[in-house]
């Protein structure tokens, strides 16, 4: 296996040739906020827009999940323009996320909390208007509850269900602000061919998919 050495945040690291900067950083213990990235996915979604980093020689910040490592590359995950974009993206996500951590089962394990901590941003955004969607919660499954209001549309659940497990119960529907993860024809999850494996709950970074209390 050919490796490439590069510098991330002043630290010399090595990564497999062809690897993306995001994984190179994470594997070396350097955290870059991310939600939609999947190591094994054939296609990079590049949808959450949180993993911006600065690369020496590039004018604009780039997303770490799409940037391939190069020998001698100098990456700065804490550059001001990269952080600015990541913070704006995060605040935008939070502007349509109901922040009620105390009553959320994901409290403590929620990646949004982790990202907020990393970026030094509050969970409740003051800069933007609160735009909640008020969608119905689906608790039809015997195993888990799906609250689309807390969903950040990262697509991890869709990928695991369709690509990894070959079931394909979940998918994206609608466009723009209405975009939502749902079942075919919006049927309740219990009636949509779900096998109650709960893998989607495991990969969900937020409290959108949570196990029912036993």
């Amino acid at each position, binding site marked *: 296996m050919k490796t490439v050495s590069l510098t991330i945040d002043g630290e010399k690291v090595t990564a497999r040739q062809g690897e993306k900067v995001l994984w190179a950083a994470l594997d070396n213990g350097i955290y870059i906020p991310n939600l939609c990235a999947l190591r094994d996915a054939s296609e*990079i979604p590049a949808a*959450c827009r949180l993993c911006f980093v600065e690369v020496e020689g590039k004018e604009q910040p780039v997303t770490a999940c799409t940037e391939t490592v190069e020998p001698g590359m100098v990456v700065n995950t804490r550059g001001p323009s990269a952080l600015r974009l990541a913070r704006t993206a995060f605040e935008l996500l939070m502007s349509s996320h109901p922040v009620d951590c105390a009553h959320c089962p994901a409290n403590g394990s929620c990646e949004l909390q982790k990202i907020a901590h990393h970026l030094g941003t509050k969970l409740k955004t003051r800069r933007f208007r609160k735009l909640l969607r008020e969608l119905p919660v689906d608790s039809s499954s015997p195993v888990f509850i799906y609250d689309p209001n807390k969903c950040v549309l990262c697509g991890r659940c869709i990928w695991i269900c369709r690509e990894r497990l070959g079931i394909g119960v979940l998918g994206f529907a609608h466009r723009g602000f209405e975009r939502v993860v749902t079942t075919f024809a919006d049927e309740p999850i219990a009636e949509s061919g779900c096998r109650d494996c709960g893998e989607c709950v495991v990969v969900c970074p937020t409290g959108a998919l949570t196990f029912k209390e036993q």
Partner: protein
Amino acid sequence: MKATGFQSVASTFREIKSRAESQWRGLRDGGKSVIMVGAATCGRAAGALEVLQAIKRELKKQKLDCPVVEVGCMGHCYAEPIVTISKPGYPPICYRHVNPVIAERLVREFILGDDPCLEFVLAALEENDLVPSFSDFPRAKFEKKVILKNCGHIDPEQIEHYIANGGYSALAKALQMQPEEIIDEVKRSGLRGRGGAGFPTGQKWEICRNALGKPKYVICNGDEGDPGAFMDRAILESDPHSVLEGMLIAGYAIGARYGYIYVRAEYPLAVRRARIALRQARKLNLLGRNILGSDFSFDIKLFQGSGAFVCGEETALIASLEGEPGIPCYRPPYPATNGLYGKPTVINNVKTLVSISHIVQNGAEWFASVGTERSKGTAVFALAGKVINTGLAEVPMGTTLRQVIFDVGSGIPGGKRFKAVQIGGPSGGCLPESALDLPIDFDSLTDAGAMMGSGGMIVLDEDDCMVEISRYFLEFTQRESCGKCTFCRLGTKQMLEVLAEITKGKGKIEDLDMLSQLAEDIKAGSLCGLGKTAPNPVLSTLRYFRDEYEAHIKEGRCPALMCQELIAYYIVPEKCERSCDACVGTCTVEAISSHPKKRYKIIDQEKCVKCGTCVTSCPPQYNAIVKLSPPGQVPASK
């Protein structure tokens, strides 16, 4: 290919061409009057089909046997329906705003009689002593028709018309060249993609030709989605073969076997005419196996898009063609190397492809002699909004905005003042009067904060509120956003919310800084071209018309008197005729009553829904009803 192959292409095409020419001559020089009716969508909307029927009916009644030809759009959409009559002994004359009654008169008085009905004339097609011709128009000095050369002058449903007017000659020529020569020619011509971004076409082709993978594809991007842009539709409706020819040459140059025309289903006439064109081209072996006896085989399929704006983005377009949802994905790899079904694919805009045959035919130097240093050739604009001559204009790159709007478009109707021009649709920006002398090319427009885009040009006058305009465009992009990436899905929604508040007078001055910061972030952070350009209308209006935003926020005043919540209707007592009840009768909510003693009319501001009907009902000699902003300006009635 061997020399014998070249000879066979030349002789096969010569045969086809001479047959087409004799058919065309039979039409033009058959000793009969030829009537051409502009029946593209613009003409049809204005009533061209009724005119067509009236002409046929009257010809039958008068027992005249004249060919009636449906042609496309000449670009003079403001004058539709347009009928062109070529009568032996007369120059071909175009008539404007023809209705069935005028059409019948033209048949009776001009074709049967000898009165050319000068009162209905738009212009003659050729210079003559009888009527002014198009070349006498002030706009003729600025226009240069290359891409639109045939539009409105040939029957788009007859391949012979296209061939007789020089069509497919470039293909025959190209098939006798080496593919690399063609790519080199296109590169030297300096042609840049007409879809908006302006990527050098020759370079794209070269990358695709050199890319590994088979089969390769050529896609014609006819998914024209900008509000106010209609040139791709006009070309597909008026001259579909020119698009096919461009695709064929592209296919030959990059080594492709198949092509797709991606056109939106909302363009049924374009779809129909493109389908007819494909059928006719196949019949003459201009499509299919061993085209014109060469060893080049190519075929084209037509694909109807369902009308999502984002499908104009090339990766979303490919996804849509593959049967997936039209959602963009991350580039690179670019479609030129990994496109349709993962194979190397060239995607070109309709106008880019039409330019190709002219480059092959006339040479790179000829094409490069038109335009500016870094943008060569001509630009097609769809003029819409507050401009007298709405329609299509084709001008050399480097023509100024002022020339396009005031010389070609004849300026603003109703003696109103020019305020701004919105270029490039939802991805473009609003440029003010100070930018009017800007020579138009890809780079100058981008520097000024707009974008060439697909070439929509919406002219705005003093009655248009710039905050409302940017809200309108943002509402469009917001609705058309696929929702995949955070910036576009939520960022445009946030901007839209803030703009809507401002137009209602509920904005805060801090919002302006938030807007411009957010707009910059969306521009830098979005995944695809739609998101990256969506903030342009906001950024450009904030840059050039910040005073209007401030008037809305600080004074609750809409300077253009457009934002409903910030205006009030008021009847000026001194102007009101008093005994007239026109406004009282038309008010839909009975908000208008008479002053008990002085009889002038008063609007009850509580009841008024600001529909504006009273303004139109007030007889022009009184003109007593005015709009005031802020609404608090309405004096208390005495």
